[in-house]
């Protein structure tokens, strides 16, 4: 473990120093760097360290390590790379950017997540380059009607300050705040009213992120309100407040729920792993003989379980390892074991089965949602 910690810390340091170097380079030796934003920068640097550290620690867990590796292997699988690249794009579009799977969990839920996610993406896209000094706008000398965008110290383009682009650029954060606030409200509403959510939620895990996002957005809006309509009333105070909330959020990134933003893309790797698995040789349950998942998956799980310290090996017989038993047969074995203990106490006896393999248990109810939840449940284990 110690090695993992050391390695992860090193990676964290490397990542944050790289970012530091990029900031220095991108802002032309801090020429364009706004000193007022230094606190933000440091909190981001810290968050980068934290995120990398945690990501690396996460990757060092046996199951994650294995699937990380396997995911890439599956992706780069010979002959499939082109198809995979296409799928990657479509999955990123539908699932990551479009939140399709969340919409399926509930339309309102999907909307909530889309609002928060896109609000944050817009905000980050606008602020980070500014904070790092990678992007800044300067008035075009001699032309009072236009601005010039400077990217990494290079003049990029010019635009009139009453153009639509300008409007979006300068008010982008306001829009982002509205999206986030709307999303946070919806999320809060759900958490307050739904019995199911109420039972499981935790403050630190589920409310804290919402509170932080809300605080960031609201203080940000207050800033805008202050300089637009109130002649800068309380501007200093509000900007400190805003800075505190933003910095708090960055510092919280590696710890709480926000970390899922970085974990979630693993879903893409899993998708390829499953796709490849479907093409591969199947595992056959050693109790009922039915194909269930891919052989590769079973072997991988056996390896993972060993690394985790589980001892599901079976000494006697041909099963070898419990992982070769499909889930329905696991349920059957479990219940039969209890049933057998009652032999002699209760009526009935074992009804022998002439075939070499036992029949596969079948869902008592095949209705979707009642027996299997979805096609995978239905197909994988009960062909």
């Amino acid at each position, binding site marked *: 473990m110690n090695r993992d910690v050391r390695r992860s810390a090193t990676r964290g340091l490397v990542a944050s120093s790289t970012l530091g170097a990029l900031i220095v380079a991108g802002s032309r030796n801090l020429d364009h760097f706004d000193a007022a934003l230094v606190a933000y920068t440091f909190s981001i640097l810290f968050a980068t360290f934290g995120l990398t550290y945690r990501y690396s620690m996460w990757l060092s867990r046996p199951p994650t390590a294995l699937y990380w590796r396997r995911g890439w292997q599956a992706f780069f699988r010979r002959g499939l790379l082109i198809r995979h690249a296409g799928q990657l794009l479509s999955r990123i579009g539908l699932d990551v950017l479009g939140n399709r799977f969340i919409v399926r969990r509930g339309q309102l839920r999907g909307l909530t997540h889309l609002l928060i996610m896109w609000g944050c993406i817009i905000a980050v896209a606008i602020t980070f380059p500014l904070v790092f000094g990678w992007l800044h706008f300067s008035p075009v000398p001699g032309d009072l009607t236009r601005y010039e965008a400077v990217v990494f110290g290079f003049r990029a383009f010019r635009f009139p300050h009453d153009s639509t682009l300008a409007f979006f650029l300068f008010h982008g954060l306001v829009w982002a705040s509205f999206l986030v606030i709307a999303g946070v409200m919806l999320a809060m509403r759900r958490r307050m009213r739904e019995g199911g959510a109420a039972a499981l939620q935790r403050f630190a895990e589920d409310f804290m992120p919402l509170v932080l996002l809300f605080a960031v957005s609201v203080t940000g809006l207050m800033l805008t309100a202050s300089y637009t309509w109130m002649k800068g009333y309380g501007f200093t105070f509000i900007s400190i407040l805003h800075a505190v909330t933003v910095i708090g959020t960055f510092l919280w990134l590696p710890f709480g729920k926000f970390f899922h933003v970085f974990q979630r893309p693993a879903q893409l790797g899993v998708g390829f792993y499953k796709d490849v698995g479907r093409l591969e040789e199947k595992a056959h349950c050693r109790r009922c003989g039915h194909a269930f998942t891919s052989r590769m998956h079973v072997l991988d*799980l056996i390896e993972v379980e060993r690394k985790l310290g589980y001892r*599901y090996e079976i000494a006697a017989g041909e099963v070898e390892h419990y992982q070769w038993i499909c889930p329905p047969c696991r*349920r059957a074995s479990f219940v039969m*074991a209890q049933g057998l203990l009652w032999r002699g106490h209760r009526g009935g006896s074992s009804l022998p089965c002439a075939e070499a393999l036992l029949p596969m248990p079948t869902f008592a109810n095949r209705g979707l949602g009642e027996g299997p939840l*979805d096609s*995978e449940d239905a197909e*994988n284990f009960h062909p």
Partner: protein
Amino acid sequence: MPVPETFEFFIDAGRCIGCQSCIQACAECDTHKGQSMIQLDYVDRARSTQTLPVVCMHCDSPTCAEVCPADAIKRTEDGVVQTARKPRCIACNNCVLACPFGVPKMNTRMNLMMKCDMCHDRTSVGLKPMCASVCPSQALAFGTREEMAKLRPRSKPVNTFQFGAQTIRTKVNVMVPADAQREFVDVTAAMHEPTIGHEVLDDVFGAEVRA
């Protein structure tokens, strides 16, 4: 709120009559309305009506959680292993395949593993889980140890299971005969046992008819 310690889950699958009340009631639970988390299979319907009601056993060291690459499965301090956390679960199927009791279900369209959470919305406020409330055979029962001892003096609860070389301890108990020799249930030893029931043939033709 945590589930009160005095209330425990007791399963005696030998009582199950396959009526599917548990399936129907499970889908009424607030945390997963419209979807049933309990597993109920026929062992071998061609030979007997034996059914297998299986809820999450809430393992002390849950294999499902450990093999989860996304850290999505959490065990709360009351010993309940919660269903996958929605933001994290990446639907890799590891838990489904690795759970020694065959409990988790996969909802592919939602990219989400779902499983029994002991009706946390109910048990955490002192109510019984849905399935154990309705189960007409009380194959699924929820209550105190004392109640159980009084109702079923010839049974005792056991919560240790053997899978090959692996021992698993669980929060949920199964009922075994009070005079059972061993304090654990050897699951893999029963792996190749056929279904249990009566044989109609032996008795069907009276002695004279058979002759």
